[in-house]
């Protein structure tokens, strides 16, 4: 199920347990339930005699886990923020955990500052479409953009450099924001284009290996560490478990969707290839690229047939319902697998991504592409040049990305944080056990971010290529519509298309 359940679940369970074990009084129990947004109004809370009021947050889980913003930041928020009281800022985002959590706790921002925040949560394709429309006409309908890393090159001209802005406007700067705390690889690959900042890293779904330890034990398979081992293991499991309908692996191979492009590019990188070579030509059709594609085609045989109609949420469903045993995909899935009503609770384990025999060095790849082991799908949050409420939006952006709030988001959702301090925070480490909102995969994720993060090329046409041309042709190949299963034909066609467009745009 969606990650959203864990936050509330965990808090309620913990509190209920505490009450049952007589660790807290009935009054405390009711008060905590109240802060979780259940039944009681603020007035009622007041009646129950909550002396601290709701300063420290009125939403889920926060009272149990939160320590509130540090005093200097809270003071800044109130003083500087309330200058813009009454402003309304808006941003459009995909329903990834950090955004959803921010949407839930935004009241903590609105209360001291009086700035209203409206978060429009839509599927990823719509986010791109609406952002594109907005910048085309410089409409300013959004104050902040949520930009997937594959689009940042395209939108860079429309965003304000946050670090420069921070320096230029000290009167609006949040004290102790600590820019250096952000994980450097994330900054370089999600928030910078051509060495210039254009946003603040916001979320980092990244490929990691995940496996069902019970199924692997049952068939006495060791956790695969190479692409060949993975294929062999998937094959074994699928054949052995034919009767019970369990498959070795599940893929997000939906035709024409970005998810297929992600799977494909990882396969290519893992076989020593890259998407563009250093001459800025498409190189998915060179021997390494073909080897990767062939591997993927082979893998598809051992995945549920529905893979070619599934994006990441279909893949998650396969994992969650117990249909598959081994997956190399987004780490964001992990907390959801441990949810309370999950059939597979506690059965999935994280592992480092598969290793490649040889990786193509970044110097051999074009457009700042970084072939590596863990495909990242991170996003940043950016301030729009066309925003009509620039200062108010800037204040919200700083608040949303400050240490405390980002750590809190991780606590609530169990997903990988952007800041090194969040990784090290004791509250986060405390949740590294099986259960909703678990953080037990975060050590693996941090390792991947620091050592094995792979990034797609950054160029203005990439958003289109990765969501249209590439997954469409791949889809034709994988579903048998064209090319007769011949990967070279498919890649050659794609190369022709892409090279022509790149040349035409004058980027060669």
């Amino acid at each position, binding site marked *: 199920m969606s990650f959203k359940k864990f936050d509330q679940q965990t808090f309620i369970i913990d509190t209920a347990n505490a009450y049952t074990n007589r660790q807290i009084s009935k009054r405390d129990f009711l008060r905590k339930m109240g802060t979780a947004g259940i039944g009681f109004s603020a007035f009622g809370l007041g009646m129950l005699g909550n002396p601290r009021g709701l300063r420290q947050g009125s939403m889920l889980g926060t009272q149990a886990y939160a320590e509130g913003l540090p005093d200097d930041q809270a003071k800044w928020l109130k003083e500087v923020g309330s200058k813009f009281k009454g402003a309304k800022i808006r941003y459009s985002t995909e329903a990834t955990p950090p955004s959803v959590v921010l949407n839930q706790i935004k009241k903590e921002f609105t209360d001291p500052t009086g700035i209203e925040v409206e978060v429009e949560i839509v599927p990823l394709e719509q986010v791109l479409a609406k952002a594109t429309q907005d910048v085309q006409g410089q409409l300013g309908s959004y104050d902040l953009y949520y930009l997937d890393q594959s689009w940042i090159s395209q939108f860079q001209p429309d965003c304000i450099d946050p670090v420069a802005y921070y320096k230029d406007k000290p009167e609006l700067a949040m004290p102790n924001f600590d820019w250096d705390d952000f994980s450097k690889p994330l900054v370089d690959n999600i928030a910078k284009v051509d060495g210039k900042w254009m946003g603040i890293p916001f979320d980092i779904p990244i490929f990691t290996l995940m496996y069902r330890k019970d199924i692997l034990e049952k068939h006495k398979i060791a956790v695969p560490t190479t692409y060949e081992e993975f294929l062999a293991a998937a094959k074994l499991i699928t054949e052995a478990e034919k009767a019970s309908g369990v498959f070795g692996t599940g893929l997000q191979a939906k035709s024409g969707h970005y998810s297929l492009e992600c799977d494909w590019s990882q396969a290519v990188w893992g076989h020593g290839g890259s998407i563009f070579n250093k001459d800025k030509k498409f190189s998915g059709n060179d021997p390494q690229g073909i080897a990767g594609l062939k591997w993927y085609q082979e893998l598809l045989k051992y995945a549920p*047939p*529905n893979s070619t*109609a599934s994006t990441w949420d279909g893949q998650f469903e396969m994992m969650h319902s117990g249909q598959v045993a081994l997956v190399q995909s987004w780490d964001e899935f992990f907390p959801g697998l441990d949810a309370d009503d999950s059939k597979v609770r506690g059965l999935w384990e994280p592992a480092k991504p598969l290793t490649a025999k040889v990786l193509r060095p970044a110097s051999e790849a074009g457009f700042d592409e970084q072939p590596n082991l863990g495909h990242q799908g991170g996003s940043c949050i950016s301030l729009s040049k066309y925003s009509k409420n620039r200062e108010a939006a800037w204040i919200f952006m700083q608040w949303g990305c400050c240490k405390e709030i980002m750590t809190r988001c991780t606590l609530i959702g169990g997903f990988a944080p952007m800041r090194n301090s969040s990784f090290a925070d004791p509250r986060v480490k405390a949740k590294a056990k099986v259960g909703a909102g678990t953080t037990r995969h975060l050590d693996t994720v941090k390792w991947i971010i620091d050592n094995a993060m792979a990034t797609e090329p950054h160029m203005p*046409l990439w*958003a289109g290529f990765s969501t249209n041309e590439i997954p469409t042709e791949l889809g034709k190949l994988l579903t048998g519509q064209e090319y007769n299963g011949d990967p070279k034909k498919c890649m050659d066609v794609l190369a022709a298309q892409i090279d022509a467009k790149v040349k035409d745009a004058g980027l060669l």
Partner: protein
Amino acid sequence: MVSQHLRALAVDAPAPRRRRAWPQFLTSEHPFPWLAPITAVIVAFGVYPLLYALWLSFFKRNPVTRINVFYPTWNWGKLLTDDRVWGAIGHTYLYTIIALVIELGLGLAIALLLDSDRKGYGLLRALMTLPLVVPPAVTGMMFLLMLDGSFGVLSMGLVSLGLWSPAHPILASSGSALAGVLLADIWQWTPFMVLIMLAGLRALPKEPFEAAAIDGATATQAFIRLTLPMLSKIIAIAVLIRGVDLFRIYDYVKVMTDSGPGTATETLTSYAGTIYFKNADFPYASTISLFTLFLVIVTSSIFIKLFKVQF
């Protein structure tokens, strides 16, 4: 004012020439004031955007600088050589024709079935209109769930009946994806045809049928020789309206398959959508849409002339 007219008209003589208070085209006798508001709305929000889209189609977009350069033949030339466009045209026509034939046939058959005054048939006819009021985007999601390769009730049903292999999920196999999308459309719009046919059937005069019965004609003969010809005018209009809508189909394809697998279900409007939203190439997307409009106008004009449709 009324009495003035009265005096003028009551005498059966040509009315004296009055000096008009308003110029003629503003009086309520002239169509102008009646049509002006609606014409204004259509021109402002229908014609102007269309002209803008046409103007846009003559520009070539530079994705790096985002500036559009005047280059009239770029997009139109691209259109004619783009394989996907021709594939889309094929799919669009295929989809339209198959859907029309099935919806018409089924619609007529079901109308004949439900055309009875017995008890309960009224309720059956009312229930039959339900599919029409579901938003197409919702219908798409409904069928997406039901046709899901692993968990869908329809897929599982077909598999357990041995009619379908689980290795080829319906919406993910290029051969059957179009059929899956068609299923949603047929479910939603056959009731439309049913309603129309029903009305047509109910308006048929009884005499010819009674005469035919006396002459000893069978039910089938009466149907072919009498019913069909008398319904032809209605059928023609229904086909025109439904056909135009089918040609512009977007919701089902977008929600269920997103033009996939590969491009097996890509129609003209869904391709325009892809170019618009994913590649942000607005001029080219405009070109494709205008081309679609052009095809619709041509095809329907041919149809109207051929079948002498009147409205």
